[in-house]
């Protein structure tokens, strides 16, 4: 299974939608709350060259925002 990381904040609707979607399609993911974790925030900015959540990292492929189609393609589901 591909390694999935989501960088999110606690109240962001699109982050929750993304997490709900992963749960729905039964994909495990690691969640980093970048509102609390400064180190992971820096990592997110470095990976995505922007500041905005969510950022989803699917085995190195970076998806900015909640884009179902892109997620599906990256996961090959």
């Amino acid at each position, binding site marked *: 299974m591909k390694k999935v990381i989501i960088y999110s904040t606690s109240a*962001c*609707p699109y982050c929750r*939608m993304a997490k709900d979607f992963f749960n729905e399609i039964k994909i495990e993911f690691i969640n980093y709350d*970048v509102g609390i974790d400064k180190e992971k925030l820096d990592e997110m900015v470095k990976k995505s060259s922007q500041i905005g959540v969510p950022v989803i990292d699917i085995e190195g492929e970076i998806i900015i925002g909640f884009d179902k189609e892109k997620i599906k393609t990256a996961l090959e589901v």
Partner: protein
Amino acid sequence: MRTYELIIVGAGPAGITAGIYAARKGMDFITLTGDIGGRTLFSWDMENYVGYQFVTGKELVDKVKDHIKEFNMDIRENEQVREILKNQKNFRLTTSKGEYEAKTVIIATGREPKTLNVKGEDKFQNKGITYCATCDAPLFRDKSVAVVGGGNSGKHAVLQLARIAKKTYLIEIKKDLTGDSVVVEKIKNLDNVEILTETQIVEIYGDLLVKGIKIKRGEEIQSLDVEGIFVEMGFVPKSGIINFIDKNKDGEIIVDCKNQTSYPGIFAAGDVTNVFAKQVIISCGEGAKAGLSAFEYINYV
């Protein structure tokens, strides 16, 4: 091409409720939308939605999703409508994925945040500029930020940011902050907030990410070091997909009490229209009316 009796554009409170009514009337319809829930997802808390003492936008949308499952509705997400045109007696809708035809259309596209229209705004999109304080405020911990717009949403963004950011500037073009005076007083008493009225943002600059803004006060231009810019200037209706119906000066689609637009067969509901008060509960009611009107139109007109 298949001709649907109805196509609903948008799946916020208005579009969803229209769909529930259309489904119960047994209409042949689909819904085309970017997402389910729309701006409701961004509502923090609602304390005036009947039946709930307190509910967040997300909770309400989850409930709605459960509700629509019962109706087996064909809702096509990630499919934004780009244009609606007349096609003889019917309407032709072009989306990001294809073309559709329908006898009636309900436009329930809602509204979106107003943009700044200043130099640097495009370049620094998501690189410090944000239109969702709820989402992105926590990313600016111990940084300096600016909130543009002193209306209710701007003031709430300031209250949120004051607890997180090192320094928050509130930029308002008018002479005074308007709205809830309790909130205004609260903001004035915050040590790490500076209110700049009669001030206009003229440029956003930086390298990879935002480093600051240029503001104009009277004739004087000055620079402020900020890493985050929260645009909270209100909303504009998403009515650009259709051009042959009447709109008011703000671009809102004009509807009558039955949600009919100036063109027969085209209905509109919710925040995209000139309806008084943009509230979830009102959009639901408007969507219900639009669904019933479309049904009536198909059967009796």
